[in-house]
C-alpha cells in the first residue's frame, strides 16, 4: 500500500513538473513571440462609445520603377507655371521681307 502510494506520489510529481514545464514554455513562447508584434493602440474609452483596439495600419510597400525622362515630378506646393524661355541669339520676327515682284 505504501509502495503504491509512493509510486502515485512520484507520478504526481512528474505530472506537476511536466505541467509546470509546459506552462513555462507556453509563457516564454508567448513572451518572445509578442516582441515582434507592433505595439497596440489603445483608444481611451469615452462615455457611450465602445472601446476598440486596432492594429496600426501596415506600411505600403512601393516598388521602385523607372521614370521617363520627360515626366514632371511634383514635390508638393503649387504646380510649376509654364515659362517661355527666350534663348540668346533667337531672332525676333522681321518687319517685312524682300522678294521679287
Amino acid at each position, binding site marked *: 500500500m505504501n509502495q503504491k502510494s509512493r509510486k502515485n506520489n512520484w507520478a504526481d510529481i512528474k505530472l506537476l513538473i511536466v505541467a509546470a514545464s509546459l506552462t513555462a514554455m507556453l509563457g516564454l513562447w508567448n513572451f518572445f513571440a509578442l516582441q515582434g508584434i507592433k505595439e497596440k493602440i489603445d483608444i481611451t474609452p469615452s462615455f457611450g462609445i465602445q472601446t476598440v483596439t486596432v492594429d496600426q495600419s501596415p506600411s505600403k510597400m512601393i516598388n521602385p520603377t523607372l521614370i521617363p525622362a520627360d515626366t514632371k515630378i511634383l514635390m508638393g506646393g503649387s504646380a510649376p507655371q509654364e515659362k517661355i524661355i527666350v534663348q540668346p*541669339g533667337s*531672332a*525676333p*520676327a*522681321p*518687319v*517685312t*521681307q*524682300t*522678294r*521679287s*515682284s
Partner: protein
Amino acid sequence: MIHKHYFEAFNCRMMAAVDMEGRPEILDQVPGWFEEWESALSRFRQHSELNAVNSTSGQPVRVSDIFAAVFESALNAYRASDRLVTPLILNAILQAGYNRSFDLLNAGNSLQTFDVIGTALDLENIEWDARFHTLHTPDGYQLDFGGVAKGWAAHQAAIRLSKIAPALVDAAGDIAVSGPGQNDQPWLIGIADPDNPDRNLGLIQIRKGGVATSGTDRRRWLHNGVLNHHIIDPRSGLPAGTDVLTATVVAPSIMNAEMASKTILILGSEQGLLWLEKKHPQMAAFIILESRDCIWNANMNTYFRGSNGITKI
C-alpha cells in the same frame, strides 16, 4: 512700337511702317500719295501722264515734277547699270503680249514668246532739259518706268514719313528705310525663299538705305518648251539668259538696290558679282541660283542677323 499700314498700289501690295509710341494719322495718307504717283507713272492707267508722253513720241513735251524726278531716276539707273536697266523696253514687252498687269493676264493664253527687236534703243538719244522739264523722245521711243517708279515712290514715302518717325516702306518686296528705329535699332527684313515665299531663308538688318530683290521666280511662263520671264536683256531684246533665280541687293537707296539687283540678274551670278565689285563696291548682294545654291559677297556678311543667317536650300 512699329505701326504698319497695308494697301494696294501699282498692282502690288504695299506696306508703310513707322516706329513710334502712338499710331500717327499720317500713315492713312500714304495710299493717297501712291495713288497720285501711280496715276502719273503707270502705263496701265489709260489717262496717265506716261501714256500721254508716249503718245507724243517725236515731239517735245513738258512733264510734271513727279514725271521729271522719275525720269531722272531712270536715267541714273541706266547709266549706273551700263545701260542694262532701261525704261526703253516697252516694244519687246508689248510684242510678248504683256500689255496688261501680269496679274490680270492668263499667262497660258495671252503671252507669247519674245522676238528679237533688233538694236537696243539708247536712252541718251532722248533730249532732256532738267531745268524746264522738257522731254523730246525720238520717234518710236516708248517709256515704261516699271520697278523704277515703284522704288522711287517708296523712297519718297519713306522721306515724308521720316519727318514724323523712323520709317520703312515696302513696295512689293523692294524696301526703303529712312533710318534706324527707336533706340537706334536696325530694321529686320527677311529674305524670302523663292520656292516658299511664306518662309524666310535668313534675316538681314538695315539701318538706312534700300533693299531690293529681282528674280525670274515670278512672272514666268513656258512657251513652246522655252521658259520666258519678264526681265528683258536690252542687248538682245529677249528674256535674260541667266543662272540667277533671285538677286537681293542692299544699297544706299532703294533705287540703287533695284538697279543693281536687276543688273546682276541680267548678267548672271559670276559676271554680276564682278560688275558689282568693280562699279559699286559699297553694295551688298545675295544671290539664289537656279540650282538653289546661295552665294553672296563679303559686304553682305555685315547685314546678316546672326552667324546662321542663311539656310541652304
